[in-house]
C-alpha cells in the first residue's frame, strides 16, 4: 500500500478511535483552552499574586523576594485608599447608570421592536465596538471640552447656566466637562454601555412572552408584572452586564487619563508603579484590589438571590 492511499485509512481509524472513546476526544478538544486558561492565564495571575507579597527595598529600589505584608500595608495609606475609593465609586456609578440606560433599550429590542428595527438596534449597539476605542475617547474629549459641542449647544439654547451649575458641584465638577469626574463618568458610560445592553437582551430573550401574559391574566398591572416577573428574571443579565461595566471601569487607565481631572484611578496607579516607579509588588497589590472587590460583589449578589432565576 502506498503512503497516499494509507492516509485516509489512518484518518478514518483515528475517527473510529475517537468515536469509541468520547472522553479522549473531549480531552483532545479541551487541552488547548485548558492549557491557555489554566497555565498561562491563571498561572500568571498567581505569579502576580505572589509578587504582591514581596516588597521594595526603600534604599536600593530593588524587589526583595521575601514574604511580607509590607506592600499591603502601603496600600492602606491615605493616598492609595483615595485611589481605591475614587475608582470603585466611579465603577459603581457607571454600573448603576449603565443598567438604567441599558434596560429600556434592551426591553424595547426584545419585546417591541420589529425584526428590522431589532437588527438596526443590534447594529447600533455593536457599531461603536468596531471603531478604535482611543478614537472614541478622544472624540468625547472634543465633545466635552470647554470649546466643544456641548458648551456651544448650551450657549445656543441659552442654558449655559445649567452647565455652569453642573460644573460648580463640588468634587464631581471642574473647569469643564472634559476636566471633571462628570466627563470621565460620561465617557465610561458610553464606552461600556454595549456590554450592559447585550447581556440584558440575552436574559430578556429567555423570558417567554407567556409569562407576561400569565401575570396579566392573574390580575397584575403592567407595572406589577415588571417588578414581580420581568425584572427578577432579567437580573442575571443585569448582573452579567454589571460584571463587565464594573470590572472594566475598575481596570481602565486610558479614559481617566484623557478625560478627567488627572487624579489617578487604580489602572493608572498600576501603570505608573510597574513602569516609571518600578514598584512591581505594589502594582501587584493594587491589581488584587479589583479581584477582591469583584469577588465580594458577586458573593453579595448571590446572597441576594440574583442567580436564582438562572
Amino acid at each position: 500500500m502506498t503512503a497516499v492511499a494509507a492516509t485516509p485509512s489512518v484518518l478514518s481509524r483515528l475517527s473510529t478511535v475517537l468515536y469509541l472513546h468520547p472522553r479522549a476526544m473531549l480531552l483532545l478538544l479541551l487541552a488547548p483552552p485548558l492549557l491557555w486558561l489554566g497555565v498561562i492565564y491563571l498561572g500568571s495571575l498567581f505569579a502576580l499574586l505572589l509578587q504582591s507579597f514581596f516588597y521594595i527595598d526603600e534604599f536600593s529600589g530593588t524587589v526583595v523576594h521575601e514574604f511580607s505584608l509590607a506592600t499591603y500595608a502601603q496600600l492602606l495609606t491615605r493616598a492609595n485608599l483615595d485611589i481605591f475609593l475614587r475608582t470603585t465609586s466611579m465603577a459603581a456609578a457607571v454600573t448603576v447608570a449603565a443598567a438604567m440606560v441599558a434596560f429600556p433599550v434592551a426591553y424595547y429590542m426584545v419585546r417591541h421592536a420589529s425584526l428590522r428595527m431589532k437588527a438596526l438596534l443590534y447594529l447600533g449597539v455593536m457599531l461603536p465596538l468596531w471603531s478604535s476605542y482611543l478614537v472614541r475617547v478622544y472624540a468625547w474629549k472634543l465633545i466635552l471640552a470647554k470649546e466643544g459641542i456641548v458648551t456651544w449647544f448650551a450657549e445656543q439654547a441659552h442654558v449655559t447656566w445649567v452647565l455652569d451649575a453642573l460644573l460648580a458641584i463640588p468634587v464631581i465638577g471642574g473647569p469643564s466637562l472634559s476636566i471633571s469626574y462628570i466627563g470621565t463618568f460620561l465617557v465610561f458610560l458610553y464606552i461600556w454601555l454595549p456590554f450592559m445592553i447585550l447581556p440584558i437582551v440575552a436574559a430578556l430573550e429567555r423570558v417567554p412572552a407567556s409569562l407576561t401574559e400569565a401575570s396579566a391574566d392573574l390580575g397584575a398591572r403592567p407595572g406589577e408584572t415588571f417588578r414581580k416577573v420581568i425584572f427578577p428574571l432579567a437580573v442575571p443579565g443585569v448582573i452579567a452586564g454589571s460584571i463587565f461595566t464594573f470590572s472594566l471601569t475598575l481596570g481602565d487607565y486610558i479614559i481617566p487619563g484623557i478625560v478627567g481631572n488627572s487624579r489617578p484611578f487604580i489602572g493608572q496607579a498600576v501603570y505608573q508603579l510597574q513602569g516609571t516607579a518600578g514598584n512591581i509588588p505594589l502594582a501587584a497589590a493594587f491589581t488584587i484590589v479589583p479581584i477582591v472587590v469583584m469577588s465580594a460583589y458577586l458573593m453579595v449578589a448571590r446572597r441576594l438571590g440574583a442567580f436564582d432565576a438562572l
Partner: protein
Amino acid sequence: MGHQTSIAVSFEGVSRIFGEVRAVDDASFEVGDGEFFSMLGPSGSGKTTCLRLIAGFEQPDSGRILIHGSDVEGVPPYERDVNTVFQDYALFPHMTIHKNVEYGPMIRGVAAAQRRTSADEMLELVKLTGMGNRKPSQLSGGQRQRVALARALINRPSVLLLDEPLGALDLKLREQMQEELKSLQRRVGITFIYVTHDQGEALAMSDRLAVFNRGRIEQIGTPAQIYEHPATVFVAGFVGLSNLCEGSLARRLTGSERPFAIRPEKILVLELAERAPDGHVSITGRISGITYLGATTRYAVAVDGGGELIVVRQNATVTSQHAVDETVRLAWHRDLVQPLRTEGA
C-alpha cells in the same frame, strides 16, 4: 343552550384579522354557565385566537364579546374575571410552587397567611400536597400542569380558559388528566373553555364543542351530535374516522351527488349471497386490506364501480372470518347516512 341557564361567554360576529389572515372569521357562539365547552380544530383554525380574545390578550377587529352579559371591549386581561391555563404552563421559574399559586391573591392584596392557606387547599385539590417549596424546574410535566391549574383556580374565576393543557403530556398521563380535569370541573362548577386539536379529548370531556376550520366555526353541538351527525365535509373528516362518499359513488348509493359520510363501524360486512336487512343500502366490493387492531379489525374494501370504503368491526367473537381479495357485500341503514354541506355555516 336552554334559556334556564345564564350565559358565561358569548361571541357575536367576532372577527380577528392578522394582516391577510382572518384568524377568526365572524364567529358567533354562546357558552353556558358551568359548561365544559371545547373548541376543536387543527392548528391555525382560530381556536386559540378565540381563547386569547376571551382572556383579553387580543382585541376583536369586529363583533362583540360578552362575559356574563357585559361587553369586554377595551377591558385589559388584568381586569377580566377569567383565568388561563397556558399551553406551556407559563409558571414563573423564579418562584416556588407556593409563590406561583399565590400569585393571584398576592396581587389582589390578600394577607400572606390567608393566601398560603388557600394555596395549600388548591395544591391538595390538584394532588400536589407538600410540593409547595419546590421550584417549577423540579417538577414533571404533569405536575407543572397541575400547578398551572391550581394557580388559575385559586382566583375562583367565573370562566377558566385552557389552551391545549394536556398537549405536552404523554398518552397515559393525558387520559388520566382528562378524567381528573372533567371531575374537577364538576366539583368546582366553573365554566371551562377548553382548546384542543385532539378530537378524542374533545369528545370525551366536553358538554358541547365547536369545531373550527380556517377561522370559521363549522359546527357546534354535543359530542354525540358532532360525531353522529356531522354537518360538513370537514367535521366528518376531522372528528373520528369517516367514509366520505362524493361524486359517482354517492350517486350510486343515494341517487344524488351530494356528499355524505358513513362511519366505518356502522357498516355491516355480509357474505356476497346474503341479503341486506330492510332499510339498508348495500354495495358489493373486494377486500383489499385487513388490519388487525386488537379490539377491532379494519377492512379496506374496494367497491364495485370505483372507490374505497373503510369498515371497522368489533372483534367480539372470532377475530376475522374474511380474507383479503374476498368479495363481500357491505350494508348500512339508510338513516345512518349523513348528508354533508361542503362549507362551514
